[in-house]
């Protein structure tokens, strides 16, 4: 039973991982075909992984409604929101535009999904400002550098900031946009490269541990 429950799944992980990794470095029609095929397979399996999450969400909200937990009425709106996108999608067969005019899916995307997602993320603008107040209390030289970099980035990207800069430091003949560009292409690159390299090393090591079956927490308990 261990063979079926544990060893074969680990073998699948090893074989798929090893073939995918080696195919990248083997310029041969067979490896190219393998990559093409495995990408399609991955898409299909990933689609079902999404379905697993979707069903899990539905069960969770169904249980809230069934048990009448506090706020259960809101759970109904999860299903309404889902149907508001899916029914038009099937009616318009996945097309957002019919010629130049909107289909019902295009309508749902523009007036429901886009409005909701845009607003939900823009609300964070208000919270970012209050967070910035706490984060940018300058207590050390490092915090001062963080504050100055953020401030330059913010004022350098809006016309009002440019006007303020011109009023205060216009005599230097240096444009704030030039400073933003230099900041982004020189010191910020240095900081980002260090982090990216650290991430790369971490990702490679973790990936190797997964391929060789050392890291297997994702398989769950027996």
């Amino acid at each position, binding site marked *: 039973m261990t063979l079926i429950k544990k060893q074969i799944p680990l073998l699948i*992980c090893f*074989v798929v991982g090893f073939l995918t990794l080696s195919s990248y470095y083997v310029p041969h029609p067979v490896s190219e075909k393998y990559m093409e095929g495995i990408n399609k397979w991955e898409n*299909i399996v990933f689609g079902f992984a*999404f379905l697993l999450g979707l069903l899990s969400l539905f069960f969770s909200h169904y249980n809230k409604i069934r048990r009448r937990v506090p706020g259960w009425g*809101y759970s109904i*709106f999860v299903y309404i*929101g889902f149907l508001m996108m899916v029914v038009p999608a099937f009616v318009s067969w996945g097309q957002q535009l019919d010629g130049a005019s909107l289909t019902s899916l295009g309508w749902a995307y523009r007036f429901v999904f886009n409005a909701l997602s845009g607003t939900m993320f823009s609300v964070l603008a208000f919270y970012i400002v209050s967070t910035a107040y706490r984060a940018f209390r300058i207590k050390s030289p490092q915090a001062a550098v963080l504050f100055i970099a953020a401030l330059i*980035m913010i004022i350098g990207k809006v016309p009002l900031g440019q006007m303020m800069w011109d009023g205060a430091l216009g005599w230097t003949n240096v444009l704030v946009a030039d400073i933003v560009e230099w900041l982004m292409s020189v010191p910020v690159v240095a900081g980002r*490269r260090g982090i990216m390299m650290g991430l790369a090393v971490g990702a490679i090591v973790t990936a190797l541990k997964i391929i060789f079956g050392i890291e297997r927490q994702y398989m769950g308990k027996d």
Partner: protein
Amino acid sequence: MEFLANIWQWFAGLFTVTPGWMIFGGWMAAGLTLCIYSFLYKDNPFFKVAEHLYLGAGMGWVFQVTFFQTWKPRVWDALMDGQFVVLIPTVLGLSLMTQFFPRISWISRYGFTFIMGYGAGLVIPLEITTNFLRQIGGTIAPFAGGAGFWAMVNGAIIAFGFICVLFYFFFSVEQKGVVKKASNIGIYFLMLYFGAAFGNTVMGRFSLLYGRFDDLYKYSGSGYFYATHVVLGLLVAYFVLDKLVLSKKNGGQEPAH
């Protein structure tokens, strides 16, 4: 069969986007936007409704994308063409559903190990190419010749900062002496990066905010029957009434959440 086709035609006809639907869409967008912004005042039922709708709509959007871009062309159409090999990833995918049945949930490992193996195999060459070799190459490039004086100076600053940041993340030797000094300088470069990233995030969020305000302004016009004004007025009326009722009930004290 003809009856069913007629029913479907009638049903699909209900979803034809007419000018009336566009006006209703304006009301819907303005309403949902203001419902979410109402959270800035305090948590309330309108925000919660919009929040749950967003969750459902987001899942619905991804579901239809998955259906029309993956399942239909890559599974259904492929099977209709006689490509039965797609049954393998389909079965692997379906194996994930056994997560709902604890007794046989181990079967889902077949699907999960496939995903993990593929991801792990793909991430190694991608990380080596993009985040490892290309970053080192980019650091060396200005010194390879052909670059001007200022490009060399900037290249030297990048190389110096990059090495200092690496020292900060280097824990194989004790951080003291030169290593400590380099590591401290690395922190400043990291702070510059974090500050710039924060500034960019703030500006990104604000550009979304401008977009929403622009839409609210559009829907406040007579063409949309003043949707923004009406919805905003209703929300304000709700909060005023809520406050009045609350003050009667609790003597002006809001309940602790």
